[in-house]
């Protein structure tokens, strides 16, 4: 976790870095009435001034925040360990005779404990989309396809990525096969789906 106050060139300790050492080593802050220019200036200088319509100065600073969580999959762990072995594991409540394709360790209807079961490695498109934008973490991966997969014998479905085809190829009902990462990252992305052989029209 970082703290603010890391305004570059404004601390007086790095006067020569910018090569334009002004009086007292302080760098002139960018002044602008454009919000996008404030954002750009923060990336470079760590601070900027937005001048609003009334001429009032509003001081902005870059304020980083980063955390590495010690994240436990806890009761969901068997699913993610299964992916590393090329297994797709759901759960089943014997009392309700209900099979979860996205595992729930306790049944959402009766509250009873559900048992781990293996799902088939083939399924069908229940719904889908192609994302041309994404949140920051995934922007570089666009365009990517999201798919909701239905399985024979399962009552609920699974959200996944759909690879090996484009927006033009995909339709609800398309047959799919599961694929697994050779080197697991222990993320849900260790499994994805591709069209079954022959499912994509040439």
């Amino acid at each position, binding site marked *: 976790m970082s703290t603010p106050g890391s305004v570059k060139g404004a601390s007086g300790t790095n006067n020569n870095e910018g090569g334009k050492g002004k009086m007292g080593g302080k760098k002139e802050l960018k002044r602008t009435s454009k*919000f996008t220019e*404030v*954002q750009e200036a923060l990336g470079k200088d760590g601070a900027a001034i*937005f001048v*609003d319509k*009334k001429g*009032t100065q509003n001081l*902005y600073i870059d*304020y980083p925040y980063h955390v590495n969580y010690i994240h436990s*999959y806890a009761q*969901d762990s068997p699913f*993610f360990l299964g992916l590393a072995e090329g297994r797709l594991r759901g759960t089943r409540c014997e009392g*309700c*005779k*209900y099979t*979860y394709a*996205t595992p*729930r360790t306790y049944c*959402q*209807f009766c509250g009873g404990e559900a048992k781990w079961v293996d799902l088939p490695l083939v399924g*069908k*498109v*229940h*719904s*889908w*989309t*192609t*994302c*041309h*934008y*994404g*949140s*920051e*973490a*995934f*922007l570089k*991966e666009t365009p*990517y396809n*999201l798919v*909701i997969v*239905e399985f*024979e*014998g*399962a*009552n*609920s*479905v*699974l*959200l*996944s*990525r759909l690879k090996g085809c484009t*927006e033009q190829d995909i*339709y*609800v*009902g*398309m047959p799919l096969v599961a694929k697994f990462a050779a080197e697991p990252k222990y*993320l*849900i*992305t260790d499994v994805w789906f591709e069209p079954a052989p022959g499912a994509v*029209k040439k």
Partner: protein
Amino acid sequence: MAQGSSKAGAKSRERDVFSGTPTPSSTKRTGRRVYMVAGGVTKFAKAHPDMDFRLMCKKAFDKARSEVPNLRMDDIDGTRISYFSDHFSRQLKAASMVQDFLGLNPRGSVRIEWGGATGGECFQAAWEAIASGRMDTCLAVGYETMSRVQTWKGNEFIALASDVNFDFPLGGFYTGYYALMVTRHIYEYVRKTKFANIKDEREAQRKATEYASRVMAMVSVKNHRNALHNPYAQYPKDLTLDAVLKSEMVSYPITREDICTMSDGAAATILCTEEKAKEFTDNPILVKGVGCGTDTMRLADRPFGKVLLMPHEKASDYANLEYPGVHSFRAGRAASIEAYRHAGIENPNKELSFVELHDAYASSEIQTYEDMGLCRYGEGYSFVEQGDPFLKGVDYGFPVPKAGTTPVNPSGGLIACGHPVGATGLMQAVLAYWQLQHTIGKNFGSEKLQIPNAKRGAIHSHAGTGSSVTVSILERVRP
């Protein structure tokens, strides 16, 4: 039989687990009657560089107070304060700082957070404080400051409100989730009906989606053009159908103009008892019904069961429908049923003068018409084409024969007003309040959006992929 239609079909489902019985918390309400007596909003904007969250809340609060000069600070017994994300605020316990800045210490207060429905929950929390007898007058105020991060980082923060084990790492992006839902909605209600005679599955689905996209564009045009007459709106636009259809594809089939934006803004409402309301105003608005519903956090966990029915519907209407699946919002249905029962509403399309609903996406507005019972499941698209949710007297550039039946989002909704999450549900309450007071002209500087003789309105606040929804019914008291 179309491919892909048999999810959890007769063979794979060994037992129909979900019985379809709604479980509203109560059908009898014994609490005190609650009135809204004042409301205020800041303009919703991309950024308010001159106001932090505290000052925005103060401005909204002061605007509300200006409506009720007889209400002194001493009359306020306590507060409910809402904001969605600590990530956006970069300040934990920010609600305490709002309470502090407004000068309301040492009164009782609590922060409300419930995803996208944060504002709607805050409104109902204030309702509960009055109805229960705990307070006589309660302030509900909420805000969001989404300009504090870049847009795509903001999308990431919002996507963290999806399961971080199973959903987020796949490309956590709410527009993507809503695109998945509407793709199935189109499959269920357009492909299987209007395009049932086309044999090629891919072609039939593409044609169904083209049709549905045009209807979504009609909703976007409606909301953007309504907002031309709302000075508080962030993105009023003189849009055309063509412009929406040609705007950038974000997640197929949802385009840029079908989506609400990130905003900074605050909203405040003051609720009180009947006795207090008489002291403060001669034009109070009764909060006649409240409802709240929930559903699974993950889309993938939603059951394929039976529809929760409203009094004007029959089970046979939906004999072949697996519900809610990923195409409908059971939480919105449950919230509506509870609120309508509380308010004594049997047929919402006939008994509501207007609805302000949570149109984060043009697609979810259409889905929500059905959840709220404004039309039957499957009729959302024709409801738009017939013109029911449009206003009379606003030019949309295409015919809207039944305009004025039940105007939806006369303010412009989230799509055009903006969506500063913690303020949004309260903003809806304020705009509904002005509609019912018949003071839109005074507050907007134009009568264009005033619904003539508005008597009863519904506000609808929605979270996640439909994991929680509130519906509140507001009613005019004066003849």
